[in-house]
């Protein structure tokens, strides 16, 4: 980790660690009678560990070779391993919360283990821990390859990766001790939010500086998506988390917005967390790893342009479809519904572009489970964006909202699209990064594929059933004009589906554990192979000049 840093860079790293340790100490001291103090201690310990790590390396010999002749992959490697760790933690938590709904006694008796506290550990664990680390790691990989240039910096990639993980740890530990803003997918409190802003600014600067170094006139489409992910997530995060802390020595804060304005801001954030965290970034992955693995160029450059700008422009409007029939003014609801339906066009353009890219490579899809992961991800992307547009229609939403149908829809996207494209990308990039011939076991990849697919299908079908049944039961009247079912009746009807859902989730989790094992064994035991031409070169040197389209 440290051997490729120069002496000056090691000193900068040391300074950052020491400053962080001081911040942690101040937080721990100021908030000693508050959960803030526990988080201060966590920051202090994390910074202390990093300080020791840097100190040990500070006298070591400096890198001798010219670093610009190679890509900087150490942070990518670390990011992928951390992502797999979070996958197992986050999905494990998911199976547990799912099981609690089927068998409530699995809550046990601790204060921290109730559904309300561990559910955000699951959501943040998979979205930010697994998804976020995978996005950061693959973005480092993709921006270097598509720019034909080394990362612009050696400390900042680590700062972004480790800083982001510190945010994730503070978030997850906070929920367990009762620190939350209650804003879904934006639960961490004010100090964690400020920290994430700092990390994110560094991430953006790193990205732009690396693009500025590129040896390739055009910025590849994958980078547009990563860039949109970084930029828009920053805007969403800052606006939705505006809050006034009750005290600088305590964790509690109150949102700057209230009631209807807060609801709109929250779901503008919430839906675009789906759009720019769980879609844009992962489309970046799709646009790089799928054509790479299939060894086919992207089917249509123009479709990429259309879908990219369509997604960036339309998605932002869609958030208000979370608030149909509520106290939100009707005109905003209608705008949200309209744009949600229009959103289908760029979404299907992306999915179609990905699938058409596979034309001529379908035999590879059949034989190669890694490529199949990405193909099925594109299919699920198409399916869940269709379902999303459909559910945003007011009449459909009146049935689906507040039920498990929404949960099923989210998981069709999260498991079927986001997780599958990530696993496909991990399987295709791990052998390259660790200079291995192939993955340790292709059979395990195949097993993982079928476990993940069956887990997703079981999960989604269970939630469709429970959601639609519950929605219908809520609105069923008897002949005498009274409601036919009590709320408890509908809850009893959910039980078999909750059991099925927990089983589907367990299958998916098993697949993720196999992936973590397979990656570990690849790193430790697979035969070595040095990849050809995986170093920065200008495009002119590598191939004849690209004919211009003009």
């Amino acid at each position, binding site marked *: 980790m440290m051997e490729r840093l120069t002496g000056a860079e090691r000193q900068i790293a040391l300074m950052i660690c020491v400053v962080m340790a001081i911040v942690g100490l101040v937080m721990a001291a100021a908030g000693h009678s508050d959960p803030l103090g526990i988080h201060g201690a966590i920051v202090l310990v994390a910074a202390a560990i990093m300080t020791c790590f840097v100190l040990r390396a500070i006298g070591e010999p400096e890198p001798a070779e010219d670093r610009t002749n190679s890509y900087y992959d150490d942070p990518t490697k670390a990011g992928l391993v951390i992502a797999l760790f979070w996958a197992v933690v986050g999905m494990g938590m998911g199976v547990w919360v799912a099981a609690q709904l089927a068998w*409530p006694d699995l809550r046990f008796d601790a204060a921290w283990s109730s559904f309300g506290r561990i559910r955000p550990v699951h959501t943040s664990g998979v979205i930010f821990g697994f998804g976020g680390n995978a996005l950061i790691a693959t973005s480092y990989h993709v921006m270097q390859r598509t720019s034909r240039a080394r990362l612009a910096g050696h400390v900042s990639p680590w700062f972004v990766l480790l800083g982001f993980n510190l945010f994730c740890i503070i978030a997850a530990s906070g929920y367990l001790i009762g620190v939350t*803003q209650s804003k879904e997918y934006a639960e961490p409190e004010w100090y964690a939010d400020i920290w994430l802003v700092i990390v994110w600014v560094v991430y953006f600067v790193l990205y732009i500086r690396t693009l500025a170094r590129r040896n390739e006139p*055009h*910025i590849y489409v994958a980078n547009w998506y990563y860039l949109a992910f970084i930029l828009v997530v920053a805007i969403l995060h800052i606006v939705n988390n505006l809050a006034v802390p009750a005290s600088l020595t305590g964790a509690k804060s109150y949102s700057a917005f209230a009631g*209807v304005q807060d609801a709109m801001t929250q779901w503008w954030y919430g839906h675009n967390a789906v759009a720019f965290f769980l879609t844009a970034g992962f489309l970046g992955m799709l646009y790089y790893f799928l054509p790479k693995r299939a060894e086919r160029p992207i089917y249509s450059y123009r479709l990429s342009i259309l879908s990219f700008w369509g997604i960036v422009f339309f998605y932002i409007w869609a958030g208000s479809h979370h608030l149909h*029939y509520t106290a939100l003014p009707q005109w905003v609801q209608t705008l949200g519904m309209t744009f949600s339906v229009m959103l289908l066009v760029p979404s299907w353009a992306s999915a179609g572009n990905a699938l058409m890219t596979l034309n001529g490579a379908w035999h590879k899809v059949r034989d190669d489970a890694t490529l199949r992961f990405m193909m099925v991800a594109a299919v699920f992307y198409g399916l869940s964006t269709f379902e999303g547009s459909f559910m945003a229609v007011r009449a459909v939403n009146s049935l689906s909202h507040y039920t498990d149908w929404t949960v099923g829809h989210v998981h069709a996207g999260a498991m079927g699209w986001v997780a599958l494209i990530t696993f496909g990308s991990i399987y295709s990039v791990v052998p390259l990064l660790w200079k291995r011939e192939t993955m340790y076991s292709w059979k395990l990849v195949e097993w993982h594929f079928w476990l993940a697919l069956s887990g997703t299908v079981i999960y989604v079908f269970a939630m469709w059933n429970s959601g639609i049944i519950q929605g219908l039961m809520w609105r069923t009247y008897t002949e005498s004009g009274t409601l036919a079912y009590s709320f408890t009746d509908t*809850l009893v009807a959910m039980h078999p589906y909750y059991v099925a859902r927990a089983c589907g989730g367990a299958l998916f989790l098993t697949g993720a554990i196999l992936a973590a094992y397979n990656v570990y064994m690849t790193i430790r035991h697979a035969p070595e192979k040095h990849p050809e031409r995986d170093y920065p070169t200008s495009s002119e040197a590598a191939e004849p000049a690209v004919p211009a389209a003009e």
Partner: protein
Amino acid sequence: MLRKILSPFARLFEFHARTHYRTERHSMALTLGIIVAAGVGGFVEIAPLFTIDETVEAAPDMRLYTPLEQAGRDIYIREGCYACHSQMIRTLQDEVDRYGPYSLAVESQYDHPMLWGSKRTGPDLARLGNKYSDDWHVRHLVDPRAVVPESVMPQYAFLLDTTLETESLPDRLAALRAVGVPYSDEQIANADADARGQARPDTDAADGVSERYGDATSVRHFDGQRDRVTEMDALVAYLQILGGLTDAAFANQPLGED
């Protein structure tokens, strides 16, 4: 025919693709393009909500959360109750029949943050206040399945044994005032005593609560324990005020009509 109709679009598309081919060489052009394209929707949908007066109805009888209720609300947030319970009755007949008059924007006017929720694993709570007795709530929170055998709700027995932390309430009310809740200086200064007073009707502190928050404020032993103020007191006090901050929803919607 179709080709003719589409030809202007094709030309536009062609033009766009060419322009893009040039601009995508500039990272800052992309950055600005993304910010502008993504900025429009949010601005158009959110900014007017702060300026259009009809967005939030007028409700002169709207009252504030007492410090004890606010402390209960903070516990509700801490425990993640919003993950399974909504507080937003939609304008649908079956919801009005099941839960009561549909929710108005003004009812959550002082809710920082709002707790409208997104999922009903349990029922909506927007009109829960005074539907059940304090005793029912305490028993239900201590062991939900003792009261509703089919329930999947987690038990919260520890709230009954945890003394409520009230020292930070003046700070919390001050922060709420900073974001727009009209607490008076007096209310902020006495928040600590008022929180304890509301759950101990037999003490002097109780009088201050009615004085500062109105005679209609419930002052009683919410958790049934006379000698101490617990987190259970706060949570039950909050649950009992849900839907009771204003009568606007009942006034605007004549019940019994379809």
